């Protein structure tokens, strides 16, 4: 897999919903080609809105999103074609209720016209990585909440995308499953060189995965923090790691308007 050459830049993006809710106010930052940027911030601060605009599913009221070199600009919205290989994992699983786990995971491959045997093989692989091999042929209604989210994550990773947008993919699972999934995300990210935007509520997840952490507070950016640890050799128990987590936690506390205890 060659590294992605697409970088994702938000330029003064604002979004006001009908009714007057300002979800984003003048947000600017960029995810370098092949980089992994995490977005953290309190609930309701506009993270999902940001991701939806990046995915072309919503439009900025002003400002624009650029995909460089291949940018398509139109009223501030980016429209991805299928071949652009963008994957999104939404905050809710969004599985097709009439398809089994493996058929849900294989859906993007199916839509890309990949042969059945191939797509089953690749889907099985990510399903195994998500710890769902036993549930491969179950229907969504037969899964636990965390399992459903893992299926959704597997579906996002199965295409080895160029641009990967993840909205709290691990929030419904326990800390150990989360670590496994983090490893899978990193594996896919590194193998494909995808330009990745990860929304998360876990600071340690952000520090472990990201090059850069965007801390949001109420509709705008509070701080952009560059993680000081080298990729690939991060150790959750090391002092350096804990220090970074502490630092980001403070930034988040400030953004959330809470005095950290």
């Amino acid at each position, binding site marked *: 897999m060659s590294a992605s050459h697409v970088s994702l830049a938000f330029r003064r993006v604002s979004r006001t919903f009908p009714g007057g809710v300002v979800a984003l106010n003048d947000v600017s930052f960029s995810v370098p080609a092949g980089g992994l940027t995490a977005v953290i911030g309190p609930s309701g601060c506009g993270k999902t809105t940001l991701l939806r605009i990046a995915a072309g599913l919503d439009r900025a009221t002003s400002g624009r999103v650029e995909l460089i070199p291949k940018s398509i600009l139109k009223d501030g919205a980016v429209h991805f074609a*299928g071949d652009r290989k963008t994957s999104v994992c939404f905050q*809710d699983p969004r599985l097709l209720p009439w398809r089994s786990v493996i058929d849900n995971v294989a859906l993007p491959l199916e839509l890309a016209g990949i042969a059945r045997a191939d797509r089953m093989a690749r889907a099985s692989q990510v399903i195994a990585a998500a710890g769902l091999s036993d549930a491969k042929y179950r229907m969504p209604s037969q899964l636990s909440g965390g399992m459903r989210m893992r299926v959704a994550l597997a579906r996002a990773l199965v295409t080895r995308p160029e641009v990967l947008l993840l909205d709290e993919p691990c929030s419904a699972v326990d800390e150990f499953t989360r670590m496994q999934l983090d490893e899978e995300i990193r594996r896919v990210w590194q193998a494909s060189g995808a330009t990745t935007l990860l929304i998360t509520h876990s600071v340690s997840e952000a520090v472990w995965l990201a090059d850069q952490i965007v801390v949001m507070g109420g509709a705008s950016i509070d701080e952009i923090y560059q993680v000081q640890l080298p990729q690939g050799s991060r150790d959750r128990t090391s002092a350096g790691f804990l220090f970074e987590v502490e630092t980001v936690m403070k930034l988040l506390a400030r953004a959330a308007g809470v005095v950290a205890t």
Partner: protein
Amino acid sequence: MKIRSIRTVIAPAVAVVIALAAWEVAVAITGVRAYLLPGPLEIARTMWLNSARLFDASIQTAMAATIGFVIATGIGIVAGSVIAAVPVLRRALYPLATILQMVPLVAVAPLLVIWLGFGLPTAIAAATVVAIFPVLAATIDGQVSVDPGLREIFALHGASGWTRWSKLDLPASIPNIVTGLRISAGLAVIGAIVGEFVSGYGGDDAPLGIVVMSAMREARTDLVFGAVALCAVVGFALFGLVSFVGWVLVRRWHSSAVDPSGEKS
């Protein structure tokens, strides 16, 4: 599973028996004349005495109704999907389609007979015309209200048109379409009967519509009701078929069919 399917058959059978018994008693008590409202026993006797003729008639009508229903299903789903997919068409044609439904069949019957000739083709056309709108409306409404979250998944992968339709819109709207088909099933039979009214058949193989008409003329109300009962049987068979197919398609995922203990997000 087995208990459930037995119940599915027994419950309506019991209901029918109760309804018939009440009817027989009501007829006996009120002493209503047989030429106005015969009791079920008398109707049954008449049906038995005319069984050969009624059987042939039912086959004819069932054929017209079924073919009309199948055509209506095809056109309804295809046209409904196209209309649902294109907003301009939806605004323009959905209202127009309702007009189709409101044209009394007898008024256009001369046209139908002249274009399609006598017998089966006209009866089929009548059944189709009458049965088409419920499928169409249900298809449109089902496909317009597909979960937009799932829509976005497909949009992101550049799936549109045929692919999105076959893999998302159609499966997601099957429950709606089945409801529409349930309504259409009954209407198709009515349509076939009305079609037969306007396009009399020659020969001995008169369909139910003709049997009803001539029996009415001769005040043979028992025969009228016998024929009507068979209309109901024909429609009921179609309805049952639709319900069964719907159940098979939906049982694995739709909430009404899922194991009630299954959690649904």
